[in-house]
């Protein structure tokens, strides 16, 4: 039987039982995002852009964050709700040569993790943040999130959401991220390309991927993917459109945090007797 080519990057089983299939619901977008990410990573490794041992995956808590719980055949950490970026900062400071990819969800990144979100991008630490945005809190039962649309009916907005949603890409961009892009699970090749570009660049990158939660939205995965195609417009054609822009929001390299700190170490080492 021919194996899926990306299974070599997963732990299918071990001495204490099998790990696959993923815990995610049928048709959940998170599994697709992992698939796209591994394709991007595989491409980078094959082209000699990085070694497999240099990749580290950090996640917070939530359905998207389960990707790193125990499935990856990479170094990984499944951490605390909202704090993946803070932990990733520590990883980077101890070893700036590691390629850090953060998996997060919209609630994890922008609600409880909001403070760390804006500061990680302000600092431009060398990390690629992949945010699976399904507009709600999936793991806990479909509550409203900072990315839920106005009037959305969720388990905690039974009368309709009276709040407006963050535009996570604009938030990342204005905080200082050097590379920001938005795609959806309906755009596999664009997403793979964006993730590959983000990982290959130094600095803080933010990739938002609109991702379906069929269970809480009560729609089929296929219908939701069709809807992602219909509700989005390329960013260069977004002017005047009410659709959600997808594409690259910015690609503005600037000095990365550890690169700047290196100058301090060199100066202090020079001052040592």
């Amino acid at each position, binding site marked *: 039987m021919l194996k899926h080519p*990306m299974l070599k990057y*997963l732990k299918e089983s071990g001495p204490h039982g099998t790990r*696959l299939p993923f815990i995610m619901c049928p048709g959940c977008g998170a*599994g*697709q995002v992992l698939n796209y990410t591994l394709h991007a990573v595989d491409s980078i490794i094959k082209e000699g852009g990085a070694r497999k041992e240099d990749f580290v995956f950090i996640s917070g808590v939530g359905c998207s964050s389960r990707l790193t719980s125990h499935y990856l055949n990479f170094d990984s950490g499944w951490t605390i709700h909202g704090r993946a970026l803070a932990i990733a900062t520590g990883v980077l400071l101890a070893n700036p040569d590691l390629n850090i990819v953060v998996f997060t969800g919209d609630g994890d990144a922008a609600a409880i993790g909001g403070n760390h979100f804006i500061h990680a991008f302000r600092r431009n630490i060398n990390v690629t943040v992949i945010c699976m945005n399904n507009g709600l809190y999936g793991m806990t039962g479909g509550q409203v999130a900072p990315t839920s649309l106005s009037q959305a009916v969720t388990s905690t907005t039974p009368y309709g959401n009276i709040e407006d949603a963050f535009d996570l890409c604009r938030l990342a961009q204005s905080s200082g991220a050097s590379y920001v892009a938005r795609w959806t699970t309906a755009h596999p090749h664009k997403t*793979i390309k964006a993730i590959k570009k983000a990982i290959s660049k130094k600095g803080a990158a933010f990739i938002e991927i609109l991702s379906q939660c069929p269970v809480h939205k009560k729609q089929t995965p*296929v219908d939701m*993917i069709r809807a992602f195609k219909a509700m989005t417009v390329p960013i260069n054609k977004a002017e005047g459109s009410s659709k959600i822009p997808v594409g690259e929001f910015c690609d503005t390299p600037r000095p990365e945090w550890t690169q700047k700190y290196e100058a301090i170490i060199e100066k202090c080492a020079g001052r040592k007797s």
Partner: protein
Amino acid sequence: MRKIFIRTDYCKGCLICVESCPKKILKSSSSISAKGYTLPQVTNTEKCNGCGICEIVCPDFAIAVEKKDKAV
């Protein structure tokens, strides 16, 4: 003819592969997996060009296809 392999213990019957196949050779079937999921089936295997889109979009890594350069 390129072979398409479906891991019935991983597939959750989401049918995203069916939707995504550009040659429309995957369809829903009447087969149910051991976990109770509706499995996709392959029809018209001769039309498969090994593009691999089904592999890329599968959330559960449950489908694999012989690529263009591995065609028999």
